[in-house]
């Protein structure tokens, strides 16, 4: 190794950390796009997907655009309201120190997501490809997968790679189901969630900010599903002198993000060897049983690694998945926009040194670029290709 010969520059370690967070986000988005393309359900089947996000209005093909827009606004309002309520409930529970209950709930939610949604997607895939898998093998494999997944996100000391893998899988599963919402609802919902996220993290009365401040003041971890990149160990002591927000050993910030709620919390903790990846229960109204809370937000973990809430993964993937339902060109545009937004957010993180919402910048850029690509880019590219000017 030439480490002793050439000291690592800032660029090396910075790049490694960025890659550490960009890779799982990209894998999540890629998998959701793959699932969307493989299980290409026709638009009429989306009516069967009912969740709290379609409680106010179910989109049908025969409505006028204005009706659809209005319905989408109502749906988003209901969804964001539900998420707000759920997050305040979480804040209340955390305030009353029911941490054990929250952790158990999170484990239970993770199990339901992995078993239920994972099982459904596997069945859809088996159905689509007519794989001759028998039910005994299938149930054993699904059982194994879910139980180990629950252990991975529930236990604090587990293989980093496997925990990261399972968190990405949970993100993929939930995101795929969210892409089955009606189209107008999805877009309005994404914008509404980005605005909500901004408010919840930055306003002094925002629930996420309260949660983070309580966690800091108590020096506890918020039980939540948060993806933490593998900490980059540097030769110098720069890692220890990172700006931290809490001057303690155990600083794990896990946020619970409800499925309906996008919580962006940036958590930073000082360096220590503990990783904090606690799963948060997910709240999912689409299935009557489980509720889970996803956490969204970006921050620095206890060992100085970057932490990104699972809700961010989910909603980025929902955006890209919905773009995939139109065409792959919009997928490329949205992917680049989201990555650029994530980069901007990381830069802001290093400047401001506090919890930041990871959704707003990326979602706004993604939505803008989706509509630009769909309305303007496509016409241009198609004309060029059909006249053999480009591609």
């Amino acid at each position: 190794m030439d480490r002793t010969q050439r000291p690592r520059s800032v660029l090396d370690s910075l790049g490694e950390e960025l890659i550490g967070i960009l890779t799982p986000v990209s894998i999540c988005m890629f998998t959701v796009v793959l699932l969307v393309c493989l299980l290409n359900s026709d638009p009429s089947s989306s009516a069967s997907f009912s969740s709290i996000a379609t409680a106010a209005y179910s989109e049908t093909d025969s409505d006028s655009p204005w009706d659809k827009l209005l319905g989408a606004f109502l749906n988003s309002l209901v969804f964001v309201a539900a998420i707000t309520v759920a997050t305040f409930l979480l804040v209340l529970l955390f305030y009353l120190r029911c941490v054990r209950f929250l952790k158990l709930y999170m484990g239970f939610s993770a199990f339901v997501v992995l078993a239920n949604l994972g099982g459904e997607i596997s069945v859809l895939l088996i159905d689509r490809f007519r794989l001759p898998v028998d039910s005994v093998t299938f149930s054993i494999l699904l059982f194994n997968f879910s139980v180990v997944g629950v252990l991975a996100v529930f236990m604090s000391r587990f293989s980093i790679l496997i925990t990261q893998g399972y968190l990405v899988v949970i993100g993929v599963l939930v995101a795929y189901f969210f892409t089955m919402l009606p189209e107008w609802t999805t877009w309005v919902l994404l914008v509404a969630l980005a605005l909500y996220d901004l408010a919840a993290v930055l306003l002094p009365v925002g629930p996420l900010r309260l949660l983070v401040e309580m966690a800091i003041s108590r020096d506890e971890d918020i039980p939540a599903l948060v993806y933490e990149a593998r900490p980059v160990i540097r030769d110098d002591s720069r890692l220890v002198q990172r700006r931290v927000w809490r001057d303690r050993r155990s600083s794990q910030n896990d946020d619970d993000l409800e499925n309906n709620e996008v919580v962006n919390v940036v958590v930073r903790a000082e360096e220590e060897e503990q990783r904090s990846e606690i799963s948060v229960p997910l709240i999912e109204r689409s299935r009557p049983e489980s509720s889970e809370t996803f956490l969204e937000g970006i921050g620095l973990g206890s060992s100085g690694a970057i932490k990104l809430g699972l809700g961010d993964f989910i909603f980025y993937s929902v955006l890209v998945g919905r773009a995939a339902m139109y065409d792959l060109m919009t997928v490329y545009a949205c992917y680049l926009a989201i990555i650029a937004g994530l980069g901007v957010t990381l830069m802001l993180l290093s400047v401001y040194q506090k919890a930041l919402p990871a959704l707003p910048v990326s979602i706004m850029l993604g939505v803008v670029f989706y509509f630009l690509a769909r309305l303007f880019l496509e016409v241009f590219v198609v004309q060029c290709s059909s006249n053999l000017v480009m591609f």
Partner: protein
Amino acid sequence: MEASRSDESNLSPNRDRRSNPNPVHNSIISSAQVWPTIDGPLGLTEEASVDYARRFYKFGFALLPWLWAVNCFYFWPVLRHSRAFPQIRNYVVRSAIGFSVFTALLSAWALTFSIGGEELFGPVWDKLVMYNVADRLGLAGLA
């Protein structure tokens, strides 16, 4: 792997949990010998690993061969260096054996089922195959 870098970090100096007081100073080998888990210095210490390995091994008997496989993956340095960590190695080797046996049995059954098909099983095949079971139970209700 982080293990080779951990030597120079500030994390390991006070840790003297070496199962093998080996005076070899090669950074890769000595750091791999120190840490029983695949995460290196970010993973468990040796005492905690024994507990984990034992628990994973015992839980794997609840029809969880994947847990055995995870056990072997997590404690991969234990398998690689056959002299170190005798207690952990005991459980990890047994997990590996359990995983192989279970996988052999399960894949034998699955392959027989998928390759044999209807000719071998008769009408029972249609009752057992997953897509029919899903249709019957209404599991694939989304698409």
